[in-house]
């Protein structure tokens, strides 16, 4: 498994570098402009609070948009971070196994004395390592810049929130991975369906505060359990994180079931 993991990471080293740099730059940009808003936060907050609740709920999970927590939640963690990590995760999930299968390079690996479970685990762990690397780099850059910009949020909370955003998207990444593990017919939907689910999950959860009938279905979706503002204020919910981790493990197990005995295309 180790060679599969290390070679997969090595082959994607530049992708890891550019993703880390890109996400770090985005966070740097967001934090760098915060001091300009901070001085006018009271006035701006009043204006933003005039917006309808539906619009506000689409932007952040807090009404105080220009407090340090509200600013980071609305500009980075609530929407943008899941989207950015989502693109990374869904892209990874759809390519770690499926691309090699389409290119027929998967056969080369499977012609060696390695079990399918080993190949699957090696590829899955490589995906996890890539997301973890981007998450760690993003966390470090965010923490350093937040400290330099005197953003009043602790390093631990910033790291926890970045980690939770990554965990949220890992659910979608592992879902895509599981779908590709089941073969061609599932692979056709493997990018579209999880992307749709991610968007629906965000919309349902954001609007469930104002649209009553969305409350129940939103509970079935991962976004419902993602509360960046809550984590940034030090109220992280360990059970929600555990639930997300269990969902990831469930999809990982499903991948094994799908890939174990099926025909390679």
């Amino acid at each position, binding site marked *: 498994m180790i*060679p*599969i993991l290390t*070679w997969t990471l090595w*082959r994607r080293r530049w992708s890891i570098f550019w993703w880390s740099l890109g996400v770090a730059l985005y966070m740097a940009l967001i934090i760098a402009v915060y001091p300009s808003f901070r001085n006018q936060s009271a006035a701006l907050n009043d204006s933003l609070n005039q917006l309808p609740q539906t619009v506000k709920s689409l932007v952040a999970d807090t009404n105080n948009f220009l407090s340090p927590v509200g600013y980071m939640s609305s500009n980075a963690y609530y929407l943008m971070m899941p989207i950015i990590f989502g693109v990374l995760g869904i892209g990874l999930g759809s390519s770690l196994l499926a691309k090699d299968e389409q*290119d*027929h*390079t998967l*056969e*080369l*690996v*499977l*012609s*060696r*004395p*390695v*079990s399918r479970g080993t190949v699957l685990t090696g590829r899955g762990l490589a995906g996890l390592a890539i997301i973890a690397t981007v998450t760690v780099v993003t966390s470090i850059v965010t923490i350093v810049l937040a400290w330099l910009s005197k953003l009043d949020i602790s390093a631990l909370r910033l790291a926890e929130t970045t980690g939770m955003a990554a965990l949220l998207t890992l659910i979608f990444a592992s879902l895509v991975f599981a779908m590709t593990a089941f073969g061609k017919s599932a692979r056709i939907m493997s990018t579209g369906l999880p992307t749709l689910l991610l968007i629906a999950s965000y919309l349902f959860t954001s609007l469930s505060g104002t649209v009553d009938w969305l409350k129940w279905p939103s509970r079935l979706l991962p976004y419902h359990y993602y509360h960046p503002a809550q984590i940034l204020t030090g109220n992280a919910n360990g059970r929600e994180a555990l639930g997300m981790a269990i969902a990831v493990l469930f999809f990982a197990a499903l991948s094994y079931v799908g890939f174990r*005995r*099926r*025909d*390679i295309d």
Partner: protein
Amino acid sequence: MDTTDAIVLSKLSKRYGHAPKLALNKVSLKVARGEVYGFLGANGAGKSTTIRTLLNFIQPTDGSAAILGRDVVRDSVEVKRHVGYLAGEVALYNKLTGKQFLDYMAELQPVKHEEYVRELVHRFDADLDKPVETLSKGNRQKIGLIQAFMHEPEVLILDEPTSGLDPLMQEVFFALVKEARARNACVFVSSHNFSEVQRMCDRIGFIREGKLVSEQTLAELANKASHTFTITFRDQAPVAELKKLRSAKVTPHDEHHLMVSIEGELTPLFALLAQHHVTRFEQQEVNLEQQFMHFYQKEVAK
């Protein structure tokens, strides 16, 4: 692990999804250690399906397959410790150099002798420093062959192995197959190129529409093949007498010259010729491909 038969297929069948026809239909065959077995058939006949089943890329619908006495599905990992494989369309990681690719393969399946890998690279004159995507088909094929041979497997399963190789490199490949046979390895070669198979195989199986329609040694095939001779007689050619010979086809050129094709036993022909003054006798090259196709068509017609 030591059994006489290196590869055993027992009524192996494969149906893809809900396809009405079986891609493999109860194929049974055995290939011994130290034997080079040619698996011939047209495109889509079932050659690659058989190979992909042997490598456990696809699951058999029915029947079973074993390599070195182990079931290819149940003991897949153990089986692959002893197998070298070359795909019909060699697909390598494009961004890796040949060396990086071979290093990766060697990490997954350690080689026995590093110097043997170096020897293979030297014999194939392979360029290992360039990214695979910049290499020609022939050069990619060389790397594919090196990775199949480099761990000195006991069973080699090769799908269209000479595809894209120039004649010089084909000679290197044929020599490697000969060496593999000499160390008692079994070589299972799929091809639609008869001359390639004729060149290296001990035995040939012909597959058509998923069924193994014939299995013969090269010697048997040569015996069954028709022999063609051009004969010059001092006097008038005995056309009528020659035509009476069993399975003989006679084509007179002129009063003294003729061409005769005859299948199987040649003694009656020589007995007849002994009664005449033959001034020139030439044998045409035996075209096994033609004969095999002729035989195959007869089998299909049955």
